[in-house]
Every structure is written in structure tokens, then in C-alpha cells.
């Protein structure tokens, strides 16, 4: 039975390495922001190193390869310590995704490495003092009196990251933000379960499986973000807008209408012709940024519909097209000044309201487009809006 256990342990560790390695190879620059990509890569690499130390300890500890006792000690200590950086990197990635103060503050980052350092000290000193672990006369691995400290120094990171994510989810004001945080919390379920089992049952390959599941879930979530985001502005793209509208459509009624607003850049073609595509793209990014700022106050979705058209879908009739238009234009004018653009530009917004589930997003955007056209027309004529 011992040999069976060793075989399964080694193979599962190998499988986890192959999983994590395959996903790491697939991560491209379009995975997320540069910081997110770096953080994820770091996590994967540190995890792979942990797997190597885990396998090394297994091989030496069970005498598959006979090594001197000193080697056993070192490998044991190494595999014990190696978990802490893995969970540290996981927490660092979570903090980055939460866009928290900790990820921005240098001091906080330095402080967060203290538990890792403490663990390193204890583990290294165990070689002489048997504080965290030791290998007894029969060659069996035993826990020392300070073993629980090492547990806290690794599992603590997971606990902190999870608690922080859940707290942010509860405190979130908009539904979309709350869903994002909950998704992130779900990604961390693997490490949470693995840590709980680590406390109860002790060291096992379940830890490797838990971390692998987290890496896998995060990878899938980031891929999904890429699928649904517009490459230029970072807003949701048309695909996402379609699916979102479909999902909210079933709940639409007279009392709970869905408002759809189309927004486009005035004279965009001439901006492109006069200043070139680069500046045109910059203008679009500005509009995207201004829309994102408004995003928290909208119970709905903001998307780039295509070209120079943007879409705002929101629940209820609280938002008016005129209100959105003036807010956007004010924000754009400020941004143009701040960024030193050679011109300023305006957007126009036209909206429509869906009161019955039979409308499709195409119909809604067409209707909004018509209102937009009339609005622009009326404005150039100098007359009152329709």
C-alpha cells in the first residue's frame, strides 16, 4: 500500500505540473493588464517550483532514492517552506484583481512578505533546533512545537485573500462588481478547501490539486474577460452586450423597463480624416474611459457596439439620454484638456425604452439610433429636440 500511495502522490503532482505548465504556456499579453499577466505568471512558476520540491521530498523521504540524512532534512524543509510563497503569490494576485490599496502601497507589500520571512527563519532553524519539524530516529518525519506557526504563515495568506474578496463582494454597490468579486472568490475555493484539509489531515497532494484548480479557474475567467471585452477601449464588446440584453430581457415589463441608449461621436469620420486613425482611436478610448467612470452608477452594462458607437443598457428609467450626454461631454472636455488633444469633440446620445420581452437588441438599437439621428438633426437645425 505504501508504494501505491507513493505512485499516486507522484503522479498527481506530475499531472498538476502539466496542467499548470500548459496553462502558463497559453498565457499571452492579451490575458489582462500587464501587472495581472506578470502576477499570474509568477504564481504559476512559484507553484511549479513548489511541485518540484514536493516531489523531491517524496522521493528522498520515502527512500526511493537513498540520500544522506542531511539531504532529507534540507528537502523536507524546502518542501515545507515552498508552500508559503505559493499562497503569497495567490494572495498578491487576488489583491491585484481587487484593485485594493494593498496592491498599490509599497509599504503594505513589504509588510505582507513578513510571514514568509518568519516561516523561512523557523524552517531553516529547524535544521538545528527541530522547531518546526524533525526527522526522528526511525527516519520518520515529525512536527515540531512551532509547526503551527508555519501553517499560519502559509494558510494565513489564503484566509486573508478570501476574507478580503468576500468583504468587497458584500460591500459592492453595483451588481456587476459584486458578481466579479464573487467569481474571484469562487476561483479561490480550491486553496480554501486544501488549506482546511491541511490543518485537519496534514500534508498531502490535495494542496497541489487545490492550487491547480485555482490557476485553472482564474485562467478561464481571464479568457472569458478577453472574449467579452473590446480590445481598444476595454469596455464590454458587442457579444457581451447581446448576451446581457438577452438575460435581462426575460424580466422586462412595464414596471421594470430596460432602457437602451446609443451614443456616438459627432463627426467621427472627419476626426479620422483630419487627424488620422491614431487620434481617432485615442478619442474612442477617452469616450470609453468616461463611460467607465459612469459605470458604477448604472445598474446595467456599458459596451462598445462597434466603430464609434457605444451602448448603455440600464434597468429602469432613472437615466435620461440628455443627462448621460451632458455628463459624458463634460467628462470628455476635461479629459481632452488634461491629455492635450488638439481638439475637443462631443458625443450625442439617443435612447429608447423596452417594456416588453418581444423586443430584440437589434430593434432596440435601431430605435435608439433613430432617436439619436433626430436629436443630432434637430440640434444642427438649432431647433428644440423631438
Amino acid at each position, binding site marked *: *500500500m*505504501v508504494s*501505491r*500511495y507513493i*505512485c*499516486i*502522490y507522484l*503522479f*498527481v503532482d506530475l*499531472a498538476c505540473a*502539466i*496542467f499548470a505548465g*500548459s*496553462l502558463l504556456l*497559453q498565457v499571452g499579453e*492579451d490575458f489582462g493588464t500587464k501587472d495581472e499577466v506578470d502576477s499570474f505568471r509568477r504564481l504559476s512558476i512559484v507553484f511549479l517550483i513548489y511541485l518540484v520540491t514536493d516531489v523531491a521530498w517524496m522521493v528522498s523521504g520515502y527512500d526511493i532514492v537513498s540520500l544522506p540524512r542531511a539531504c532529507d532534512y534540507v528537502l523536507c524543509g524546502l518542501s515545507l517552506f515552498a508552500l508559503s510563497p505559493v499562497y503569497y503569490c495567490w494572495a498578491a494576485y487576488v489583491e491585484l484583481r481587487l484593485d485594493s490599496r494593498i496592491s498599490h502601497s509599497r509599504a503594505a507589500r513589504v509588510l505582507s512578505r513578513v510571514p514568509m520571512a518568519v516561516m523561512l527563519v523557523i524552517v531553516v532553524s529547524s535544521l538545528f533546533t527541530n522547531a518546526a519539524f524533525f526527522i526522528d530516529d526511525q527516519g520518520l518525519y515529525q512536527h515540531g512545537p512551532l509547526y503551527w506557526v508555519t501553517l499560519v504563515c502559509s494558510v494565513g495568506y489564503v484566509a486573508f485573500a478570501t476574507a478580503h474578496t468576500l468583504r468587497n463582494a458584500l460591500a459592492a454597490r453595483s451588481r456587476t462588481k459584486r458578481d466579479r468579486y464573487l467569481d474571484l472568490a469562487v476561483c479561490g475555493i*480550491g486553496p480554501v478547501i486544501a488549506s482546511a*484539509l491541511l490543518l485537519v*489531515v*496534514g500534508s*498531502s*497532494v*490535495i494542496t497541489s*490539486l487545490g492550487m*491547480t*484548480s485555482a490557476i*485553472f*479557474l482564474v*485562467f*478561464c475567467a481571464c*479568457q*472569458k474577460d*478577453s*472574449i467579452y471585452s473590446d*480590445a481598444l477601449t476595454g469596455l464590454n464588446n*458587442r*457579444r457581451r452586450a447581446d448576451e446581457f440584453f438577452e438575460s435581462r430581457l426575460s424580466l422586462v415589463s412595464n414596471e421594470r423597463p430596460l432602457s437602451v441608449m446609443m451614443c456616438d461621436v459627432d463627426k*467621427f*469620420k472627419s*476626426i*479620422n*480624416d483630419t487627424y*488620422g*486613425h*491614431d487620434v*481617432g482611436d485615442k478619442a474612442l478610448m477617452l469616450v470609453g474611459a468616461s463611460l467607465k467612470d459612469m459605470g458604477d452608477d448604472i445598474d446595467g452594462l456599458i459596451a462598445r457596439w*462597434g*466603430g*464609434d458607437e457605444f451602448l448603455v443598457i440600464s434597468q429602469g428609467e432613472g437615466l435620461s439620454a440628455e443627462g448621460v450626454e451632458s455628463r459624458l461631454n463634460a467628462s470628455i472636455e476635461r479629459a481632452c484638456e488634461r491629455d492635450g488633444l488638439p481638439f475637443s469633440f462631443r458625443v450625442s446620445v439617443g435612447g429608447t425604452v423596452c417594456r416588453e420581452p418581444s423586443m430584440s437588441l*437589434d430593434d432596440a438599437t*435601431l430605435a435608439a439610433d433613430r432617436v439619436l439621428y433626430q436629436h443630432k438633426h434637430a440640434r444642427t437645425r438649432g431647433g428644440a429636440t423631438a
Partner: protein
Amino acid sequence: MSFSFLYSYTYLGTGAFCAAVAFVLAYGLSPDMGTRREIICMKSLLYLYVVFVGLDLLCRLGESGVVAMPESREIALSCADSLAAGIIAYLWTLYAEMRLSARLSGATWFRVALAAPLVVLAVALVASFTSRSYDYLVERPLAIALYIVLAVVHALVVIVRAKTSSRRSEGALIVGLGIVLLLVAVLNSLATYVPFMVLGMLWSLVMVYVRLQRARIFNDALTGLNNRRRADDYVSQQIARSRRQEKTLMYLMDIDGFKRINDTYGHLEGDRALKVVAGALRRAAGNYDGFAARWGGDEFVLVVPESPALAENPDEVTAFVNSALALLARDERLPFEVSLTAGYAAIEPSDRRPRDPLRRADAMLYRRKRELHGPATPRLG
């Protein structure tokens, strides 16, 4: 803590992990990842896989004596486990065939013939179950191996005959995964107490899923062509290659009077026109061994290697696309004519970003539009 406990605890944990990942994959499958048949096949595969994980776990726990069970039940579980594995191999091969050749996999005779090894396996398993012996279970690795080898051989044929790199990489994926599956099937029959097959299958399912998701990132939702993101990547690669003296031409094409088509016939007809244009571009990409993408709105990009014939007459490509377009529009019975105007530019080593050759191609396109239609041309920026 006995090793018996540790072993079963580990195996259970592995099973839970595999089942959880399989559920995530099944939940994440979306309709635009493939044809309806492909999605149904993949979903059944995933759910059956979860069943297999459970059966495999029970078999192992029984075999190691952790869970006490009479031999007859052990044999029954082994048979069920093997049947599940066989059906999974069948579905896997069917899915691979659907991706490699829609025509072949759509034929009823093919689907029936493909089920033959599975039927043989089922008969062997029934014989094993009724005779309460393990004698006939040798069929299992054979059946699985047969299916996988079939898929791999077909994929190799596709790689050899492929005209586009995306077809080649699709074939390569199936070959790669097939080899891994064969390996774990062999390893599993040598050491049944290690979850080789369970983890090996999961890995291949994850790789396929990741590939399908990537396609969604890089494909335009409406036409299925490469989208702008992918086009940017590709042109950047070509710019790097141009430094090694491989000449490439970049065409920027847009639909004549697209706004008018939309206004007159409606958005739905406009979408149909876009799909037809995409079809014509795909043919051109196949014919000239190039790359086609939807750049945005009604603008398309075609990147082809510059052969001596094209160096002399680059507009040959435009003519090809337009005649393919006319044929396809007729087949689709579009109520209007669709034609493209194109500008082109050679990708130079001095180019730094995709925007550079694009600007040159765009300038030519704009000039041509003015010549053809006069100064007041409605062009989408």
C-alpha cells in the same frame, strides 16, 4: 494515519477535483463554440466523464480493499467502468471527426460504423459480467486504442493536406491529445491503481476547451473570420518576418455602399452580406495561402505572401475575391449586388506596427473610392 487511508483520501481528492473541473467545463460551454452537434457531443462527453470518474473511484477503493465488496460487485463495477471508458473514447473520436471533417461525420453510415468497436466491447463486457470473470476485459484498452488511433490517423491526413495554418494546428492538437490518451490508456492497464486515465482525459478536455475559448477571443462573432485582435497579432508577426525577406502584401477591402445596403434592405440583410463577403475572403485565403480577417464594420483585411505573379499584378487578388463574391451572392440569393474595393500595401521591414502598412493600404483604398464613386463617398471610419 494508515497508508490505506492516505491512498483512498488522495484518490477521492483527485476524483473530486476532476469532477469539479469537468462541471466547470460543461457549464462554460457556449453555443458559439461550435455546431449544435459538436456542443451536444462535448457536453455528453463531459457528463459521461464525471460518471466514469465516480465508477473508477469505486473500482479502485474496492480493489485496494478499502471498501469491502463481493467479487461479483467488483466485476460489475469494472464492466461499467470499462463501458464508460469505451463510450467516452467513441464520443471523443466522433467529436474529433466533426472538427476534422463535417461531411464525413455527418454521414449516418459513418456514425454507425464508428460504433462497431463499442458494440464489440459491450458484448465482451456482458460476457465478462455474466461469467463473473475478468477474462474479457482485455477488450477495453484495445477498443479505446482503436478509436484514438483512428482519430490520430485522420488528423495526420488533415495536417498533410491542410491549406491553412489553422487547419494544421487543429489536426496537430488532435494528434497531440491522441498520443497522450494512448499513453495514459497503456499506463492505466499496467498500473490500475494510479488515476492515469482520469487525469489524462481531463487534461485533454481542458486543452480542447481552452482552444475553443481562444477561438472565441480571436474570431469575429458574426462572420467567424479572424477578428481585429487576431489580425493585429498576425500582421505584427508578418512585420517581423518581413525583416527576413519574405514579402507579404496586405489588402484592405471594404464593401461598396454598405451603408446604403443597410439603410435600404435592413440590418439583417447587411449581416448576410457580411457573411457572404467573409466566405469569399476565406476562399481567397485558401487559394493564396493567406490570412483573412474582419477589421471592423464593413472593412476586411487579407494578408497574402507575395508571389511573382502578384508582384506584377496585385489586383489579381481583388478580382478573385470579387468573382468569388459574385458566385456566393448568387448562391445565397442576395437581393442586391455586393462588391469590394481594395487598397493594398507591401509590408516593409521599416514598418513598426500594423497601423503602418494599413495606413498605406487605406490611402490607396480612399483614392480608388473617390475615383469610382466621386468625392462624396459614405465611408465608415
